[in-house]
């Protein structure tokens, strides 16, 4: 089982790396925020897998913190950091 946990954690990490493309070239800020949101969820999954694989219960608390902060970041983005005028050339 340990091998499966490790392999899945690595696979999710690769997913995360692929998602970085959307952060780099997402046309609007919202796209970048969505990618960041997916990173948060993937990080939670990776931490849970590693906590189980290495018997390290503290990693579960870290995952809990990530889950808590995910909502805060996105709400802060929508209310504060999202400019009201979005350049309107994002219909590719």
């Amino acid at each position, binding site marked *: 089982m340990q091998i499966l946990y490790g392999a899945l954690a690595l696979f999710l990490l690769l997913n995360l790396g692929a998602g970085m493309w959307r952060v780099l070239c997402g046309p609007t800020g919202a*796209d970048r925020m969505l990618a960041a949101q997916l990173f948060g969820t993937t990080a939670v999954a990776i931490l849970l897998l590693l906590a189980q694989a290495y018997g390290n219960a503290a990693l579960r608390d870290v995952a809990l913190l990530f889950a808590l902060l995910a*909502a805060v970041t996105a709400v802060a983005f*929508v209310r504060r950091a999202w400019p009201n*005028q979005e350049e309107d050339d*994002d219909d590719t």
Partner: protein
Amino acid sequence: MMIRDFLSAVFLIAGAVFFLAGTLGLLRFPDVYTRLHALTKADNLGLGLMVLGLAVQAESWAVVGKLLLIWGLVLLAGASVAHLIAAGALHRGIRLWKR
């Protein structure tokens, strides 16, 4: 013990497939609204299946409770974020994708 391992592996791999689908959707879909759809699948189902797969292996009920709490928080965050971003995008006049 064997059945437990098998169940856990099935759930974990199914969860990983949903994460892959979410990432692919985020990369391939044409606009914010469709990407939102891909993202929430990965958030809710992918993490849900992962949590289920780990919960069958968990050593105590406290761990199961913590896993479910994490999943619940992510569900709550995902739902509110999807709504906020979709409403904000509409409000800012980001156009819907048309073929």
